[in-house]
């Protein structure tokens, strides 16, 4: 009965309990912290152990050989540029939407917010099936593409759409938080200084929400690069890195899938660390 309830012996006296002022942290909390630290370590282990295992099982020679394969290089390059293109193209519409969500009240706003989160909760293979119908030759978009000689299925453009579909909530939510954090008064002040609403958006709201938007762009880009389920349905070929890893595993087994995975992870990690670092540099410049 003594845990987690403080007793008179180890905890604060009845008189002071909850008074806030003389309340000494009882030892029980430390035991609680220890328990939580133990449980937390298990979670970290779950993440780190398989990755570390994979890295340790791959020799530098294997890595080097794999990195030199044209197929691997092509797939990684394809993954990076399709995700980047999807992120940049869709951000043009996603950032204004985030602004509306942060600033305006409108009918069925909750529904819109829910719709934006949909890609996060539906299975991505299902998302891929849905997208396939949407971009296939028979669809409106597909026909429009065909008219200019573009077939989305099996094309980098289709891959970019699939990546954007699953990753766009990250950008919208981050940008919305960013815009919500810009004091309304600053926008009002800019209006009273004769600026048009467009100018206010580009010179006040956007720069002040930039930190969150950059962070959202990086997240969206990262999430797009790691997408597998939706992309494999829309485009098995050309092969993005996650699909290539899956194919090597299916055709040749674990031993052959590992080095590609390690190379891809290393490149992704380097890319994000550099992006984060650049974003931080830029932001500290804005604030100071």
């Amino acid at each position, binding site marked *: 009965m003594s845990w987690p309830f403080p007793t008179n012996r180890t905890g604060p006296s009845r008189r002071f309990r909850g008074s806030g002022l003389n309340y000494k942290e009882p030892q029980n909390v430390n035991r609680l912290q220890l328990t939580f630290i133990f449980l937390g370590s298990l979670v970290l282990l779950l993440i780190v152990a398989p990755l570390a295992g994979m890295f340790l099982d791959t020799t530098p020679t294997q890595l080097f050989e794999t990195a030199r394969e044209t197929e691997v290089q092509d797939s990684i390059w394809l993954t990076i540029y399709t995700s980047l293109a999807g992120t940049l193209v869709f951000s043009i519409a996603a950032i204004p939407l985030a602004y509306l969500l942060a600033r305006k009240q409108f009918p069925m706003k909750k529904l819109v917010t829910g719709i934006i989160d949909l890609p996060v909760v539906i299975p991505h293979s299902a998302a891929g099936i849905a997208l396939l119908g949407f971009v296939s030759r028979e669809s409106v978009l597909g026909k429009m593409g065909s008219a200019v000689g573009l077939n989305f299925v099996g094309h980098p453009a289709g891959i970019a759409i699939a990546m954007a579909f699953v990753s766009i909530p990250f950008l919208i939510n981050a940008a919305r938080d960013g815009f919500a954090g810009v*004091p309304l*008064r*600053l926008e*009002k*002040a*800019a*209006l*009273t*200084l*004769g*600026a*048009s609403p467009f*100018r206010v958006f580009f*010179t*006040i709201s956007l*720069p*002040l929400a930039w930190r969150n938007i950059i962070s959202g762009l990086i997240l969206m880009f990262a999430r797009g690069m790691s997408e597998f389920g939706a992309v494999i349905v829309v485009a098995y070929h050309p092969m993005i890195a996650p699909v290539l890893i899956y194919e090597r595993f299916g055709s040749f087994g674990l031993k052959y899938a590992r080095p590609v995975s390690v190379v891809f992870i290393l490149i992704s990690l380097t890319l994000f660390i550099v992006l984060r670092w650049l974003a931080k540099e830029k932001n500290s410049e*804005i*604030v*100071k």
Partner: protein
Amino acid sequence: MLELRNISKRFDDFSLKEVSFSVEQGDYFILLGESGAGKSMVLETIAGLVAPDSGKILIEDKDVTYEKIQNRPIGLVFQDHAVFPHLTVGENIAYSLHGKKMSREEKHEIVKTIADELEIPGLLNRKPGTLSGGELQRVALGRTLIQQPACLLLDEPLSSLDTRLKGDLRRLLREIHRKGQTILHVTHDYEEALSLATRIAVIDKGEIIQSGTPSAVFNHPKSEFVAHFIGMKNFFPVKLVTTDQTVVAYTGNNIPIRVVTDAPGGDGFILIRGEDVLLSVKPVETSATNNFRGTVVEIHPNAGGVEVTIDAGIEIHALITRESVEKLGLKAGNTCWVHFKATAVRYINK
């Protein structure tokens, strides 16, 4: 120049009721009211940030009630200055010059002139995060003045500053006004109002209760609220004369009143709280340096006790207890002596 006609606006828990007043060219108009009285709301309505339910706003005889915010010829300085944190001081001040047909050098020149006027020429390349409250307020003022607004709207511009900075900024505002700028300034501080205003309006619960010159409003408060809010019935315009030994304020009819102040000589106001005025029926020796003989004009019970009005060349109101009135046997027409200490007199520089 700026006229509000029956402006009304309803919110869930607050409303502006038929607010009307007009600010003339060259006025320093102060809208005086407690916090929550609707002062800021009035300014935001004039600026166009809030649309009124009914009524009209005219600026230079042009109806701007539904004009776009960016097209109104006014400049609003926000209470917390709202200086853009990501732009330098220079960029903040130059913000409204965007799209104006002038060269980069001309813009730079204008920004420099404004910065000199506001005594912040050294700050142009600094980011607002590194500035003090007083400096930020000057940047906000400069950013607004550069637009040459027909009317400058100030929302509690001094409230976030300490006493010394308040004095500096008051001096600056007076200077801006002296150069011909029409100003509408809202505040809850009657000292600010006395110190700066050429005209005053008192607002309470979204309604204008009284407006007029400072003397008219302070000497003849129209309602209990105004009297209570202003809190000072003993209010006199004076001319301050300082010598080595004494500081004396002369009222309009040359009654000398001793005061304690560091202010230099010149025009101003004095205020004496009714509670600080002592009455006696015979001349008595006290530490008070201001002693006058006068006649009781009126005895008027009010919430805090009894208010006795004495004519001693100037009308002085004393707030005393009912027992004291009986003890002294005060009646209208009686002769009596008025005493108050020089330290009980509050002097406000004009």
